[in-house]
Each structure stands twice: as structure tokens, then as C-alpha cells.
């Protein structure tokens, strides 16, 4: 099994290098002038040229990319144009908030979406199933920032039972996590329903029925494990969406995560910070996908067998 994990970890490396290349190219091809941003409009051209020289910004793109890449592997993401501090430190402080938010949201959405999806498939075309379908469709059409604002309006401004923003206690996470989790849960519910219905049509389900297994046993012992594999994949795919969502949700609830770092950096054209934050989130996403692949191998004996 560890061989499989190792192989997948090694597989991440070239992808990571490509991601960095893509992000690096996007942010460096257009000739913004970082030295000018750092020194301000009043600085003399000589000073700007000197700083450009010092930062190595006048070298060719590919050379700068390789230099940056070398830095990344030493966890050196450069210096923030704005604060002049190492980017890595700046991001590291904000990372836990985002991770917590994303992980809570993914867990919540799975805990809501998968059981309700199974229920919806088992009682398909019932009133409950139909109402789930409608809610899922509506939730897929609500912008997350507005959902956050509406939840905030109801639960903190009107009812006053939950804090409206900032961090502190665990209760501060409830509204942002719910805001992120509800639409994902709706999506996962739909996926689970479809996959579960497909699974229930399989021949081995009929075999189990012919053996005299009860409906509950058929669902939990025979169908769920098989259905879980594709559900896991959709959960992983949904995670990218969720991570992007933190950006906006952090803004709504005033949470100090990676999202707020990126937004601040965007306003300042602080390219090293934007780049590092993007890379961080992409790596996080890839690690989650890796985790899902490992779970996949754990559940599916056919995959496990290849790495015995």
C-alpha cells in the first residue's frame, strides 16, 4: 500500500512544477513593474532599475521560473512587495483558517449529502425525494456570498444566536461552514442519488435479494460500498470549488485566511503573494485528491490488489 502512496506522491511533483509554471507565466508575462509598485511613483528611475536588477526581474522568464522553482523547494516564495516580509511566513499564518474552513465544509457537506442522497435514491419519486431535488436545484443557483449574507441576516442579526464574523470560538465557524457546505451538500446529494440508483440496478444486488437479504442489508452491505467510490470522486472534484469558495466566504465573514491574503495582494498587485497563495491552494487540492485516491484503493479490492 505504501508503494502506491509513494508513487502518487511522486506523481504530484511534475504536476506541481507545471502548476507553478502556469501561474508564474500568467502573472509574469504582462509587464507590470513591481519595483515601481514597491518604491512608489515618486522614486527615481535609477532606483527602480537598481531594484529590478536586485530582484532579478530583468532576466529572461525561463531563468526566473527556474530560480523561483528552486526557491519553492526550499519553501522560499520570495519577498512580499507590500510588506517586504518573506511571503511564506505571511501565508503560513493565514493557512490554518482556510484549511479548517475547507475541511469542516467538506465533512459537513458529505455528512449531509451522502445519507440524504442514499435516502433519496431508496425512496425515489417520493415527496421527500422531490423536495430534495427542488432544494438542490435552488441551492445550486444561489451565489455563496449572498447565501452567507442571508444566513448572517437571519441567525446573527435577527435571531442573534450566532456570531456574524471574525474568529474566536468554534461557533464563529458555523455560519461560514454552513454557507460553503449547503450548496456542496446539494450537489453531493444529487450525485449520490444518481450513483446509488445506478448501483441498485446492478446484477449483484439482485443476487443479494435472491439470497434473502433485507433491504437495509442490501443498501448498507452491498450497494453503499460500491456506490461510495464514484461519490468520493465527486466529493474530491467538489473540493476545488469549495477551496475557491473560501476566497469569497472569508470576505463575507471577515475571516483571516488565504482568501483575504489573496484579495489584499490583488489590490496591491503583490505578485509573489498571489502566486504563493495560488500554489498553496493547488497543492492542498492535490493532497486531498491523493487522500481520496488512497481511500479508493482502500475500499476497492481491485485497486488494492495492484499494489500488494
Amino acid at each position, binding site marked *: 500500500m505504501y508503494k502506491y502512496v509513494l508513487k502518487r506522491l511522486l506523481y504530484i511533483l511534475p504536476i506541481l512544477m507545471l502548476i507553478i509554471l502556469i501561474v508564474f507565466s500568467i502573472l509574469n508575462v504582462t509587464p507590470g513593474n513591481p519595483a515601481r509598485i514597491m518604491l512608489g511613483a515618486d522614486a527615481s528611475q535609477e532606483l527602480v532599475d537598481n531594484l529590478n536588477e536586485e530582484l532579478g526581474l530583468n532576466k529572461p522568464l525561463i531563468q526566473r521560473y527556474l530560480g523561483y522553482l528552486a526557491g519553492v523547494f526550499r519553501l522560499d516564495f520570495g519577498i512580499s512587495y507590500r510588506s517586504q516580509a518573506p511571503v511564506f511566513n505571511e501565508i503560513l499564518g493565514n493557512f490554518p483558517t482556510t484549511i479548517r474552513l475547507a475541511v469542516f465544509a467538506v465533512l459537513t457537506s458529505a455528512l449531509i449529502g451522502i445519507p440524504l442522497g442514499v435516502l433519496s435514491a431508496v425512496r425515489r419519486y417520493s415527496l421527500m425525494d422531490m423536495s430534495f431535488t427542488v432544494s438542490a436545484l435552488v441551492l445550486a443557483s444561489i451565489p455563496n456570498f449572498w447565501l452567507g449574507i442571508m444566513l448572517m441576516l437571519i441567525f446573527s442579526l435577527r435571531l442573534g444566536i450566532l456570531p456574524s464574523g471574525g474568529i474566536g470560538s468554534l461557533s464563529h465557524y458555523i455560519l461560514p461552514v454552513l454557507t460553503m457546505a449547503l450548496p456542496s451538500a446539494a450537489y453531493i446529494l444529487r450525485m449520490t442519488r444518481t450513483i446509488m440508483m445506478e448501483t441498485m440496478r446492478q446484477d*449483484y444486488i439482485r443476487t443479494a435479494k*435472491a439470497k434473502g437479504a433485507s433491504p437495509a442489508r442490501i443498501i448498507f452491505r452491498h450497494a453503499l460500498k*460500491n456506490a461510495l467510490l464514484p461519490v468520493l470522486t465527486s466529493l474530491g472534484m467538489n473540493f476545488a470549488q469549495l477551496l475557491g469558495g473560501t476566497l469569497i466566504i472569508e470576505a463575507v465573514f471577515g475571516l483571516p485566511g488565504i482568501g483575504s491574503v489573496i484579495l489584499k495582494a490583488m489590490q496591491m498587485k503583490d505578485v509573489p503573494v498571489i502566486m504563493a497563495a495560488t500554489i498553496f491552494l493547488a497543492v492542498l487540492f492535490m493532497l486531498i485528491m491523493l487522500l481520496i485516491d488512497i481511500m479508493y484503493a482502500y475500499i476497492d479490492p481491485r485497486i488494492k490488489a495492484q499494489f500488494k
Partner: protein
Amino acid sequence: MGQLLNIKDLEVVYQTKNIVVEAVNGINLSLGKKETLGLVGETGAGKTTMALSILKILPERTGKVIGGSIDFDGLPILDLNETEMRAIRGARISMIFQDPMTSLNPTLTVGEQVEEGIILHDTEYKTKVEVKSRVDEILELVGIEPSRKKCYPHEFSGGMKQRVVIAMALACSPEVLIADEPTTALDVTIQAQVLSMMDDLKEKLGMSMLLITHDLGVVAKICDYVAVMYAGEIIEYGTFEDFFINHKHHPYTKGLFGSIPNIRDRSKRLNPIEGLMPDPTNLPMGCKFHPRCKQCMEICKVKPPQIYVNGTHRVKCHLFEKQEVE
């Protein structure tokens, strides 16, 4: 009667929004203790549908029994509730499905799947050790090394998978085994192996067997009785002798014999039945076989034939009316 399984006037339909498929149209069949009945017919004749209705596992939303009765050892199957049915499924009546590749759950070990029936039903094997030894015993019976029970289905070949499926069906020593084309999905060489094994086991365990097939060769090997099914009806029924020694048959049955290649008879070409099975949403008037029948008469197009009995031999065809009189 004294038969183990009696099916009377069974009618089954599949219903979707705007289509009604008449899959089984008034079938009468019975199966005695330790007998083997071969049910022969083309794909779509309603053989599997009939088998599924005996276990009451027709597709939930669409399949529906609309008439008739099924009697199993004094139990009115169609009137039993789900809980009572579950006690019969797998314990007293077992089923082997056509495709062993898809009939096994890919995420459970072979051992787990074989023992499931034993655990679910009230058998003589109560403790874990007893269940384990029963699983070993039954696997050995079908020719699988008991040490392989920790393997998953994907680690088995097609023939071995079908042995696992058979082991699952036999685990609780059922009284009736329904085998739905058990050898169709297998290689020809494996087919013979599996078939003779099933025949042996049937004798050894004293089961009755309903063998569904489209292969008259299979029937000739192991069946005591034969029923030929066409468009949801039994058109000919009789003993092994009636079929393979006598030569008076329903035109459809003759056609089935004509479709088998004969090694000794080199000059003759195959003589298949022309045309296709009628559309079950729109069955023809009169005899359902008449559009394909080479001996079709005017009466066949308007009046459904009755059943003509001659000893154990029963045929549903207008041609037999005169012979009956003789």
C-alpha cells in the same frame, strides 16, 4: 398434485409510463421433488421473468404479477409478505443467475458472499466456527480450494466465478434451485464441466431444479421434463422421452431442433426458424407463433390453440387436433 412447485395461469407484465409488455401470459407448470425441468426458449420468451416471479424479485417499479398463483410446498407465494418471502429466498428456493461476471459483488470477498445466506437464514450452522466450516465444505463441493475464500471475485476466472455463484445458491441446501442460463456466459469447455457438476450436486443433495436455457443440448443432458416457452406461453411440455425419442412436435420445437448443427448429417444446411420473436407490446392474434410458422393454417391466425394432451405430452397447436381424433 403432490408436486413441490405449482405454477397456475401465471401472468406477468412490465409496465412503464405508456408501454405495457406482456411477458408471461398464463403459464401452467409444476416441478416435483428431485426432478429437473428444462425451460427452453429464445431470448425474450419470458423465461427469466417467470423465474423472478417465483422468488418475487421482479424489477420493483415496473414488473407486476397480474394473475395466477404460485404454490410452493403448500405456501401461496404470491400472497406472502416480504418478510416471509425473505425466509424462502436463498434458504428453500435459490437462484443462479446468467452472468457470473456481474452477479458477484466486487467489493466483498468470495467467502463473505457465500456465508451471507447461511448467516441470514435459520440454518443448523449457528456459531462462527460452524459457519466457517460450512463455507469450506460448500466451496469444496463446487471444486474451489477453501483457502481461496479470502479472494475477491476479480481474482477468479469466469468458470470459477460461476462455481462461486453455485456455492452461494447451495449454501443453505435449498429444495429448489432455479438456474437461469447458468452456462451461457461461459466458454464451451467450461460449460460442460459446470453442467455435469450441477447435475451431480443435484443428485447428491436431492434438490429439484428448474433449468432455464435456450440450448436443447443442455436439456438433453440433464432434464427429466422439458417445457418450451414462446412469447410468454408454454407451447409444448413433456418428459425427456416425449421430446427426444418421439418425433411429433410443435412446429416451433421442430424449428429449435432444426437450429442445432448435426455432425452426422453433413449435407444438410442448418434449418433455422425464420423471423423474429413477436413484439411483446403487440402480440399477434390467434396462435402467437403463426407469423413464423411453416405449417400455418387459417384457423391459427384467428383462434388461439388449446392444449392437446397425449399421455405426458402436451402441445398447444391446432395441428394436433386431428391427430388427437385418430
